[in-house]
């Protein structure tokens, strides 16, 4: 049966475990998967600029032995001629076996999924959801901590528009014993609907602060985010807030020795390059993990759709 993934919550915790197990198997036995998607086609429809997510999906499909067809900007597609997302999804369904789509408008992936006859993976719909980034985050947490429970997770930066933050909160509130420390400027706090919909709903302990250094000693995971220029309507607000948090070696002085530092990338300057060599820096591992989880997800959805 055709199925799409728009939100991380479209996947149960059992399915997340299944994807992680597949990803681990891919890492251990890459040759086993080298022809898993022979003659299958992934369409990457990217109506908003992206480097790593599009490349990650494309690399994932190539490593599975499949093919990729691609739209890499709205200007080079019929969207520029005014074609609707629904029509694009129906058309691309005739060419490909699975779609990965990024679109600047929130809900665009849902529209594509309800109109396509093939599985659609949301590769980011505006500030709304970005489930495959969360898959990358989860595999990274799993590989670093070997557990999803009993963690103190610090989220720092743009917690308002940061879709990866919302998805990660939604994913990690499903496990026991986690607590969150939400570190952001006042203007970029986690929206109340996210707090109400997951943290408060499941009675998950959380604190909100503007002080990264004060929060540092208790954290098992520090998830840094970029202040996203493209989400601001007002350039002045962006300029005022963009350097709110810059992680430097100095600020890690009181951090746990087994802290894991994650970042969905790209970074602008919120993590100093001096931290890249710190064993606690996991953000480039996260990029690689993202590719493995996308491979696992493509495999799962193609199998469920009867296309493998």
């Amino acid at each position, binding site marked *: 049966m055709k199925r799409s993934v728009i939100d991380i919550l479209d996947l149960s915790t059992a399915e997340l475990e299944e994807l992680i197990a597949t990803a681990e198997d891919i890492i251990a036995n890459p040759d086993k998967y080298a022809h898993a998607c022979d003659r299958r086609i992934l369409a990457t429809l990217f109506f908003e600029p992206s480097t790593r997510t599009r490349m990650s999906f494309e690399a994932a499909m190539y490593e599975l032995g499949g093919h990729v067809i691609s739209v890499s900007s709205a200007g080079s597609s019929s969207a520029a001629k005014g074609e609707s997302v*629904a029509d694009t999804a129906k058309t691309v369904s005739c060419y490909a076996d699975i779609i990965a789509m990024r679109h600047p408008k*929130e*809900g665009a992936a849902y529209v594509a999924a309800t109109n396509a006859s093939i599985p659609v993976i949301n590769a980011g719909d505006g*500030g709304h959801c970005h489930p495959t980034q969360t898959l990358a985050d989860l595999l990274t947490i799993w590989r670093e901590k070997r557990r999803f429970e009993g963690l103190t997770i610090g989220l720092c930066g743009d917690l308002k528009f940061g879709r990866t933050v919302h998805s990660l909160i939604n994913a990690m509130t499903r496990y026991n014993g986690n607590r969150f420390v939400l570190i952001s400027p006042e203007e970029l706090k986690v929206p109340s*609907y996210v707090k109400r919909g997951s943290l408060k709903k499941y009675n998950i302990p959380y604190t909100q602060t503007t002080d990264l250094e004060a929060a540092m000693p208790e954290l098992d995971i520090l998830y840094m985010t970029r202040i996203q220029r493209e989400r601001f309507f007002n350039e002045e607000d962006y300029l005022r807030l963009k350097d709110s948090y810059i992680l430097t070696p100095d600020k890690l002085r009181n951090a746990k020795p087994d802290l894991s530092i994650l970042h969905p990338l790209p970074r602008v300057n919120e993590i100093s390059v001096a931290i890249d060599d710190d064993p606690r820096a996991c953000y480039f591992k996260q990029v690689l993990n993202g590719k493995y989880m996308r491979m696992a997800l493509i495999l799962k959805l193609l199998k469920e759709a009867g296309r493998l």
Partner: protein
Amino acid sequence: MNIDSIQNGVVIDHIKAGQGMKLYHLLKLDETELSVAIIRNVTSGKMGKKDIIKIDADIPLNLDIVAYVDPGATVNIIRSGELVEKRQMELPEILTDVLYCKNPRCITSTEQELHHVFKLEDREKKVYRCLYCETKAGG
């Protein structure tokens, strides 16, 4: 129109006082040629005051709109001068083209052919969220 002598039509009763006109517009009754009576601030034993809308024609109404504006309203169907059906309202789980998403980042802001669909999140607080972008209605 003699409001007591509807032969075939619809009477929306027990509307919270002050909501009658809103309902009249949302049901687009202002766009019809039908005989419609809006009776405002009628004394009611239970409600103190209430509004009533009487429509002198048996037309299909979007009851989701009635239920959304006032879940306490009742819709009475009159045929041949007799009350044939009395419907109690309750907040619908899904509202289609009743509310409109105001989020400028929502896909519905650019794709005009899409229906505006909202899902009920909190029945007690009457909170609806856009199906596409999850923005709260009215937010």
